[in-house]
């Protein structure tokens, strides 16, 4: 793994943290007594701090350091942050985000407002901390020593030193003689150490010539505690070529008072360090320690929590699964295989089919993630929008656990933001009085919900505002030339006009949802993931935006139709109904254009074989099947020879060369191995 890759991981993690902080702060604002949330926020900042410094992101590091201080202050005091504090927190999160971007792109300087925000943060601390908290008794090392019964070691127990000269005789080459004195605390075993460990480590970088052990107290067998270190001092005569610093590393985790390393000078200048005899030390012969080496067994690396997979690889897997499904279908529908009337063959194929389905479902579920995060993000959008236009808004979330395709989650975020801003800006009444008169709460209610409906996922954004003024929309569309006066539009079509490019419902383009782009970007974005937007509205009760999404992007539910001996697939999502008209319901205008009467509507008939220029046959409409399809422009009846059936198909692109073929959006391999084209209903009429 390279440093770059690590950085990538960090950036991803940091973004997650920042996003979560945003949400946590908003939730905290709602329930300021929730210290756990504050802790969460603190922890996020804390993690950022640790990693930021690891990557030398000093600007980010400094900012989060101070931010952490403020959070820590609130976390550990009884003072509840005020609204302005929360605003500052959110501002800080923004700055953290921006600073991170600066750091990533290695831009110099600071993002706008960095200094100001940092100053404010520091001000909070200084003003709030004017009354210093009662000084806590800090525990010093000495207290600790006392607590652990250390004081008796302050003066090392005198031990009789054997003749030093004998040790010098045993030195080899460049070795130096050291005396290492270990005065390990009595709790040493509980801390995961034992004398043996140090001996082992020492033997790696030098030779232990001898050791002298001084037991602390005599204890009886009854009082013996196996977890208590009874050796108050061990003196080790140690020969090594390593430096003193290298030896010290071995004792890195010991308290400073627990060890002492002394380079022992040659006897000529010998100054015995300890020369008073009090107890008889026990000499333990040094034993060469065998290294436990076991190179054959490779350590298995187990990542217990999550496996990160390259999205590309996952896509390839989906592709292969698609192939598998096709091959499986082919097997099931192959005439020759069907002809084999053998129970075992049938059973095997059935079994294979079952397993294929299972694999398909499981693999598809890999891409599915709960929509929760996207919904939570909207809290911030609502809060900001609400502040900006001065309307109090209550956001209700429903069905956050609904799972949708990850690609769609990404495509969904912007359209949702747009719709929500639009609802708050234009939907919810500006005047509280107006709301009260209509018997509504002072707070505007925006409901965001997600649920499954018939093989689709529905995301619903609902507001309880004044609703869409149909008349106004229609007039505006006329003004802008989006509709012609002679066009007859039904309710849904009028509402859909607000998503036409160049349409803006507000008389004054507001700062919030205006910005020159209309709701048409919502439609474009949703359609890019094969979804659909429907708008409905009840005057004075509010409007609802329905985003209808397919379950996955790789597979669509298709209606298979035949025209001129060829089969085609129409996405079921666009089909309203199919029917065979009576002869008197078909009208011909000017011997060219055909229409069909479907209940109260008059729909143009589009002959599929003509549009795709398959042949010039012209069967009677009342002897064919008409499929009623709705696209952006309205409804039309597609004339096909017959309906073959409904099937889930795996979408295949047609390749670069055919990608722009009009009327066709892709292809699919059918069960019998034949290729069927998927029709693009937008381009048929």
């Amino acid at each position: 793994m390279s440093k770059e890759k690590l950085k990538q991981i960090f950036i991803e993690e940091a973004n997650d943290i920042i996003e979560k902080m945003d949400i946590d702060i908003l939730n905290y604002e709602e329930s300021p007594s929730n210290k756990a949330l504050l802790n969460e926020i603190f922890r996020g900042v804390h993690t950022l701090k640790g990693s930021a410094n690891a990557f030398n992101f000093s600007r980010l590091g400094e900012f989060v350091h101070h931010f952490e201080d403020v959070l820590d202050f609130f976390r550990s005091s009884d003072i509840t942050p005020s609204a302005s504090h929360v605003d500052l927190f959110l501002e800080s999160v923004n700055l953290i985000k921006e600073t991170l971007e600066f750091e990533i792109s290695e831009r110099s300087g600071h993002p706008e407002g960095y200094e100001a925000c940092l100053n404010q943060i520091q001000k909070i601390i200084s003003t709030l901390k004017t009354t210093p908290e009662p000084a806590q008794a800090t525990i010093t090392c000495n207290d600790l020593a006392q607590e652990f019964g250390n004081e008796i070691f302050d003066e090392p127990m005198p031990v009789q030193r054997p003749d030093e000269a004998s040790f010098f005789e045993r030195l080899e080459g460049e070795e130096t003689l050291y005396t290492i004195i270990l005065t390990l605390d009595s709790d040493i075993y509980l801390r995961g150490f034992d004398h043996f460990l140090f001996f082992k480590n020492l033997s790696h970088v030098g030779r232990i010539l001898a050791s002298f052990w001084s037991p602390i107290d005599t204890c009886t067998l009854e009082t013996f505690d196996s977890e208590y270190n009874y050796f108050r001092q061990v003196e080790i005569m140690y020969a090594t070529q390593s430096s003193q610093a290298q030896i010290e590393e071995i004792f890195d985790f010991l308290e400073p008072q627990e060890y002492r390393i002394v380079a022992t000078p040659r006897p000529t200048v010998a100054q015995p360090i300890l020369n008073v005899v009090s107890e008889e030390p026990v000499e333990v012969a040094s034993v060469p320690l065998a290294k436990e080496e076991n190179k054959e067994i490779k350590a298995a690396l187990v990542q217990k929590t999550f496996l990160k997979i390259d999205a590309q690889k996952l896509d390839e897997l989906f592709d292969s699964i698609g192939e598998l499904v096709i091959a499986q279908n082919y097997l099931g529908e192959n005439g020759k295989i069907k002809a084999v009337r053998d129970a075992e063959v049938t059973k095997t194929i059935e079994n294979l089919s079952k397993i294929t389905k299972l694999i398909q479902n499981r693999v598809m579920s890999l891409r599915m993630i709960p929509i929760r995060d996207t919904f939570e993000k909207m809290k911030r959008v609502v809060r900001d929008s609400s502040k900006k236009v001065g309307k109090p808004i209550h956001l209700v979330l429903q069905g956050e656990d609904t799972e949708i395709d990850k690609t769609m989650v990404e495509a969904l975020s912007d359209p949702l933001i747009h719709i929500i801003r639009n609802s708050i800006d234009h939907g919810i009444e500006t005047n509280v009085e107006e709301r009260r008169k209509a018997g509504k709460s002072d707070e505007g209610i925006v409901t965001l919900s997600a649920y499954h409906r018939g093989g689709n996922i529905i995301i619903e954004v609902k507001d309880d505002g004044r609703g869409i003024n149909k008349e106004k929309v229609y007039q505006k569309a006329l003004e802008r030339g989006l509709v012609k006066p002679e066009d007859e539009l039904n309710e849904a079509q009028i509402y859909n006009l607000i998503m036409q490019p160049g349409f803006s419902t507000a008389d004054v383009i507001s700062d919030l949802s205006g910005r020159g782009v209309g709701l048409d970007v919502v439609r474009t974005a949703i359609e890019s993931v094969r979804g659909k937007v429907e708008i409905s509205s009840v005057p004075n009760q509010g409007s609802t935006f329905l985003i209808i999404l397919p379950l996955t992007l790789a597979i669509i539910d298709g209606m298979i139709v035949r025209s001129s001996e060829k089969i085609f697939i129409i996405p079921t999502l666009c089909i309203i109904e199919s029917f065979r008209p009576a002869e008197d319901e078909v009208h011909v205008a000017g011997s060219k254009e055909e229409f069909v009467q479907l209940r109260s509507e008059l729909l143009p008939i589009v002959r599929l074989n003509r549009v795709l220029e398959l042949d010039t046959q012209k069967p009677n409409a009342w002897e064919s099947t008409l499929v009623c399809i709705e696209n952006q422009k309205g409804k039309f009846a597609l004339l096909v020879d017959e309906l073959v059936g409904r099937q889930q198909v795996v979408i295949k692109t047609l390749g670069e060369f055919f990608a722009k073929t009009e009327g066709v959006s892709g292809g699919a391999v059918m069960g019998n191995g034949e290729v069927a084209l998927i029709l693009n209903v937008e381009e048929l009429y």
Partner: protein
Amino acid sequence: MGKKVILVDDSKTILATAQMALEEMIGRGTIQFTTYLNPAELLDALLNGREDYDLLISDINMAQMSGLDLAAELKSHDKFKNRPILILTTESSPDMKARGKAIGVTGWMVKPFSDDKLIKAITMVLGL
């Protein structure tokens, strides 16, 4: 069989950094290395015998439980009582350290850590 080292930290960055630092040791089979993002999950696995360690390295500030609480809990079980636990954290206040020592924490490492330091610490504590 190499000694078993477990690292628990709720930062994926830290886990990945450590993983990278220890690649060679793992490759040589000197240690087995397992990482956990969730201390509660680790504790559960340990107490139910699904997991074991010769050395545990733990962050302090984690969502589900603090590293010190994790250490304290483990130290209260005979099986893990004497096993070394290193704390890897940005916090190194004397108060914290005192609490750590009282619990029986083996040692402290401060983030950010160098590869070398981590390797040395593991080598030292396990006597490799």
